[in-house]
């Protein structure tokens, strides 16, 4: 394919995509150019697919046949970000946002809205998009989207995820064309450096510098790698990019290949992401077919191809040297650095390894310039960051905001606050390597340095919100269970350290903690930080250290008073029946597997705490809320 052909595809399909970006009146005019009266976008990301979005699409197709609708386009996209409301369906040009759609709902929408002269079905719209007076606001103006700025996710939920033509129309591969026709490798490096782009995978290493070091390294064979081994539980932004806009990753890797002098690339992706893997393979096939991967790309003489390698469920493979060992077909164990991967990476050759979200930022920087990118964010952290917001929060989903956005904005304005009227207790960032942010720091600007300063870290961008019912010691134990399980076992500080830390935490949550345990934790943590081989072991103590720092009183209560203030740690709880609320219905008594409850009909029952096994059956069966844990 030539540059002219690429531009032609981009121009021909441009309006199809623009309809989805511009609001109402203008979009209606544009829609006339596209040949489609309306477009229905249905999310085909993992979240919505799990809640049966494929059946919604099937129903729409059937309804269209029955109703004779042939001028409405159905588009299966990647993730819209608001996963809690899936499956999501958006109708353009009006931008009507239908949430939690079932096949029956889809049928209704087809019959009442998508037919000629139809009207939006207000009952099925996401409630936040309907004003009190009944008027409908386009979804882009609701609080969840209004505060966001989408760079990495710019095409996710906008384009058909399996169409290279739509990707090109949305701008993919135009940056590659610009680089191949107008820029020298050094100019590309300078642009990325000037933009101030830092790696989004966790460590925040300057991307431009990484490319420069690899370019300068000696050797004819070099590799470009993409880290899509998103192991941090609760983080799913990389998956969403791969599912929603896979071509932007391929394009950026090709740009880096041209820049550092590499002809081959590997994408290392989790096998737990079947949809992402499938879309990547489709995208690579399409790009090869159009000559955007392979030999002599866009007649420039530049060759580049990409292979997909599947992970197999090892968290440590997110670490760069372990990831490269795994690509080589070995046990995914890290090795000491130096040599760094810029000199000695995959198969011993100089290698650039960047995370998916980092790659997704490359093309916009090339197209819009480094000045534009560096004007966003904070002095040390430029651009935006995608957070996967989960846990006890209304709007679970993906959120992309400028670096430095206060945590409060993310949780309350975008996330919609906590459900069930519960109070915010902490937000956990950085996964098993990160820490907890307490309420006192809720106004912290989320960037690399601020998070490190308060004892957490950016990590890949998982952000789990926890309410007042969460026990922080239990959460620390949860993360240590994870790291102890995932420690590869190569170095002693991590292998033994994680196990011992976990033992101490188990002891504390079992009500057997002693005051000196806290000193032991601190000492052991310091040793692990200073002597573990890779970041997994070095950062494994972070969840304990940060919860000890911000929630020290909870540890003290567990140790000195043998109490779990949040009522989570089983061993410290006892079940009691409140005699005022108990109606003597005998339901709890009949369901107690340990025969620990006694009492006559219509009189208050009591629990024999020595017999009670704390299974919770009584609470589950009590209709009067009379049983309490304390």
């Amino acid at each position: 394919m030539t540059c002219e052909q690429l531009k032609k595809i981009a121009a021909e399909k441009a309006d199809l995509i623009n309809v989805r970006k511009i609001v109402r009146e203008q979009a209606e005019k544009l829609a006339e150019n596209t040949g489609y009266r309306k477009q229905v976008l249905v999310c085909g990301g993992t979240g919505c697919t799990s809640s049966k979005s494929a059946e919604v699409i099937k129903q729409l197709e059937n309804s269209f046949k029955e109703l004779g609708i042939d001028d409405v386009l159905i588009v299966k996209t990647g993730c819209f970000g608001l996963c809690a409301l899936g499956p999501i369906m958006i109708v353009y040009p009006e931008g009507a946002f239908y949430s939690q759609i079932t096949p029956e709902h889809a049928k209704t929408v087809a019959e009442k809205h998508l037919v000629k002269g139809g009207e939006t079905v207000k009952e099925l719209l996401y409630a936040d998009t309907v004003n009190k007076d009944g008027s409908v606001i386009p979804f882009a103006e609701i609080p969840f989207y209004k505060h966001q700025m989408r760079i990495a996710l710019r095409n996710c939920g906008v384009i058909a995820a399996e169409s290279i033509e739509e990707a090109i129309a949305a701008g993919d591969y135009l940056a590659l064309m610009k680089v191949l026709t107008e820029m020298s490798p050094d100019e590309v490096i300078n642009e990325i450096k000037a933009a101030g782009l830092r790696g989004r995978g966790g460590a925040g290493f300057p991307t431009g510098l990484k490319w420069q070091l690899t370019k300068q390294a000696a050797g004819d064979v070099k590799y470009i790698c993409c880290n899509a081994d998103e192991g941090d539980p609760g983080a799913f932004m990389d998956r969403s990019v791969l599912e929603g806009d896979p071509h932007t990753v391929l394009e950026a890797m090709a740009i880096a290949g041209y820049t550092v002098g590499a002809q081959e690339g590997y994408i290392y992706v989790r096998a737990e992401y079947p949809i992402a893997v499938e879309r990547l393979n489709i995208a690579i096939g399409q790009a090869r077919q159009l000559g955007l991967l392979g030999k002599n790309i866009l007649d420039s003489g530049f060759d580049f191809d990409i292979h997909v390698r599947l992970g197999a469920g090892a968290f440590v493979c997110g670490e760069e040297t372990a990831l490269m060992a795994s690509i080589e077909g070995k046990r995914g164990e890290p090795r000491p650095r130096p040599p760094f991967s810029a000199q000695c990476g995959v198969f011993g050759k100089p290698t650039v390894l960047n995370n998916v979200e980092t790659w997704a930022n490359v093309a916009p920087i090339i197209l819009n310039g480094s000045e534009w990118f560096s004007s966003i964010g904070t002095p040390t952290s430029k651009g935006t960051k995608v957070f996967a917001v989960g846990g006890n929060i209304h709007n679970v989903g993906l959120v992309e905001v400028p670096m430095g956005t206060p945590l409060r904005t993310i949780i309350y304005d975008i996330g919609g606050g906590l459900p069930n009227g519960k109070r915010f207790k902490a937000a956990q960032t950085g996964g098993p390597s990160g820490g907890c942010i307490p309420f006192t720091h809720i106004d912290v600007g989320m960037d690399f340095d601020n998070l490190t300063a308060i004892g957490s870290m950016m990590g890949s961008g998982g952000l789990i919100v926890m309410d007042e019912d969460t026990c922080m010691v239990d959460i620390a134990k949860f993360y240590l269970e994870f790291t102890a399980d995932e420690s590869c076992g190569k170095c002693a500080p991590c292998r033994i350290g994680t196990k011992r830390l976990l033992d101490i935490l188990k002891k504390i949550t079992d009500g057997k903690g002693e005051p000196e345990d806290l000193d032991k934790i601190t000492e052991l943590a310091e040793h692990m930080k200073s002597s573990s081989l890779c970041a997994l072991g070095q950062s494994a103590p972070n969840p304990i250290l940060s919860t000890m720092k911000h929630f020290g009183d909870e540890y003290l209560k567990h140790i000195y008073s043998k109490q779990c203030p949040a009522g989570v740690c089983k061993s410290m709880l006892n079940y009691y029946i409140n005699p005022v609320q108990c109606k003597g219905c005998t339901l709890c008594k009949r369901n107690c597997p340990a025969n620990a409850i006694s009492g006559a009909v219509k009189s208050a029952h009591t629990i024999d705490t020595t017999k009670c096994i704390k299974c919770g059956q009584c609470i589950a069966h009590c209709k009067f809320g009379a049983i309490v844990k304390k």
Partner: protein
Amino acid sequence: MAKKLFEGTAEQMSRLMDCINANRNEQGALMPVLHEAQNIYGYLPAEVQTVIAEELDVPLSDVYGVATFYSQFSLMPKGKHRISVCLGTACYVKGSDKILEAIEKELRISCGECTPDKKFSIESCRCVGACGLAPVMIVDGEVYGKLKAEDVAGILDRYIKD
């Protein structure tokens, strides 16, 4: 317990050989081949590992080393219906440990085990990325989300019946 001999079909072996031949000259072929072998057989019995080692000219110890390193590869056969419960953070804060407990109780086996009739096996997994539906369990690739412990029996019933 008497060791049950591995039984593979000729068709399975020919699929395995196709995969080995397709990857033979690739750098780092072992992982893709093991993935496919596990797809074909459902697990990685010693006999299959031996074939892979010989064909790819890799020491058997390396094959075993890789097969045991990664949690997705299994040396034990799995049940007809594979249940996995997400214990990722988002699911954990929403009580997925209680879901796992309910499944264990219902099937009377522990996580990582297979029922005596080989019908069900339970495993835990780390984040399938469906955090919007937390807590989730996956049965044979089908995702069940926003679960409560009392939903478990009903879901398992559908699989017990067939």
